[in-house]
């Protein structure tokens, strides 16, 4: 089984190739403030390093957020482009699972946290066992940043986050964490490539304002 995994939920993007449960190539790139777009070159680089073309891939796995809107869309559009260009299935996993499932994270219960801006964080609860297998216990929700430590304590969980804060483990989403997410991938199954979109975590600001003014959801279309 050959997997191409990518994630760009934070300001850092990640691409890796996994062959039969073993990470054979991985590359991280900055997603912000650059003149060029580097995630696609990183995808090509990891495939080159693995000595593979997209024809050899069995599936694509994309980090589904929440996180930075634009970065999520770049990763999502690349994942869709390869999935449709090479006729391969697309899977998605929560980006916070890619934090807890990453290398060098010890066994334990974790409250993964990602900055949601405006003094808020996305948090999600995970268990990671001795083999590294990572399972989601509670899906992502948005909370005040100052509540994160307290919420983690109430679960008996460690805080793990790309952002440095007291008593938290610093770790960013890693595409290679997909090696520890097989159970989750089997349970979720492939997504519909056309209609799939990341979990942005928030609605567009204009939509929030419109819905609050009109007291109803924005019509689709």
């Amino acid at each position, binding site marked *: 089984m050959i997997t191409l995994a990518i994630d760009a939920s934070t300001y850092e993007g990640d691409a890796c190739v996994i062959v039969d449960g073993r990470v054979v190539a991985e590359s991280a790139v900055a997603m912000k403030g650059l003149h060029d*777009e580097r995630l*696609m070159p990183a995808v090509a680089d990891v495939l080159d390093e693995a000595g593979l073309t997209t024809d050899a891939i069995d599936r694509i796995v994309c980090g589904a957020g929440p996180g930075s809107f634009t970065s999520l*869309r770049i990763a999502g*559009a690349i994942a*869709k*482009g390869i999935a449709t*260009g090479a006729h391969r299935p697309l899977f998605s996993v929560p980006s916070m699972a890619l934090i807890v499932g990453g290398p060098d994270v010890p066994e334990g219960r974790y409250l993964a946290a990602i900055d949601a801006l405006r003094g808020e964080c996305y948090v999600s609860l995970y268990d990671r066992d001795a083999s590294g297998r990572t399972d989601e216990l509670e899906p992502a929700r948005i909370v005040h940043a100052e509540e994160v430590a307290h919420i983690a304590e109430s679960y008996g969980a460690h805080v793990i986050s790309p952002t440095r804060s007291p008593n938290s483990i610093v770790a960013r989403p890693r595409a290679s964490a997909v090696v520890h997410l097989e159970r989750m991938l089997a349970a979720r199954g492939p997504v519909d490539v056309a209609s799939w979109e990341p979990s942005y975590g928030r609605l567009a600001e204009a*939509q929030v304002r419109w819905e609050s003014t009109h007291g109803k959801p924005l019509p689709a279309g």
Partner: protein
Amino acid sequence: MRVLGIETSCDETSAAVLDGAGDDVSLRSLVILSQDVHRIFGGVVPEIASRAHLTAVVPVTERALADAGAAPIDAVAVTNAPGLVGALLVGVSYAKAFAYARGVPVIGVHHMEGHLFATALEHPAAVPPFIALLVSGGHTLLLDVEAWGRYRLLGRTRDDAAGEAFDKVAKLLGLPYPGGPHVERLAAANESGRFRFARPMLRRDQSPGDSDFYDVSFSGLKTAVLNAVKSADDAERGPIARAFQDSLIDTLVEKTARAVARRHRSRVVLGGGVACNATLVAAMRERFAPRGVEVFAPSARLATDNAAMMARAGLFRLEQGERSPLDLNAFASQPIPGLVSA
């Protein structure tokens, strides 16, 4: 060469396939999905547009490929500037990955260069040299197209684009967004003469060396409409719409006529959403027909944002030997490639 074009610069998700070489081109398919949701907001909301592109880009592209038939594509052309960066990035990222997976080159194409090629897809004689007037919601450009890839910028708007002026005036007149068709309809139902607005940046004493000889400006015209609306009753909105459109069209026709005369061109090519305005096209034809100057305007489908024109401009760039690297990015603004100084 068979080129897949992808366009996501604003609120249309579009894909197209064309076959061809040089100016001998056949459009095989064109799919355009317009995002109606922005009408509610009276303008395009970038984040909503970007999200919609991500869920539209695959079905739109697959439909275009299916409509074009089984032959494999040789390259992918994608709009990478100018436009809404978040929206452009969806098309650019998807196009790069799709091309990579298919083992074909990708070429980033300037949206306004696409508009220059749009009319030639329907009118084989709409080829250089010609004077181009590109009028849309985001741009108003007057160019001398000496050859494909060789463009002399003569004039541009100093403030609002022509389409933007239509949208803003529509709002002042209580008409829906996008305003162009509504203002045109209301103007057509009314006689001119009740109101008259000055023709902006248009004076007899201007000479070709003047910086405003070809440039236009619609912000003052919009303010004049605002003042007229304030002091008029509802029944006078029709005559105001007519006076506004007369002023805008007169200005565009006159500036284009200056370009035709000074650059000695025998063809005028219109492009952009405002080229859907039949009154503008008729006024251009009326002005230029006695001089033997042909006026070409694309159909509405090719005047507004579409991927067919991007595929056509991409074909030209590919035939020049150009290819984009995998780190191709999207840019909100960028000069048209091949621009020569006036």
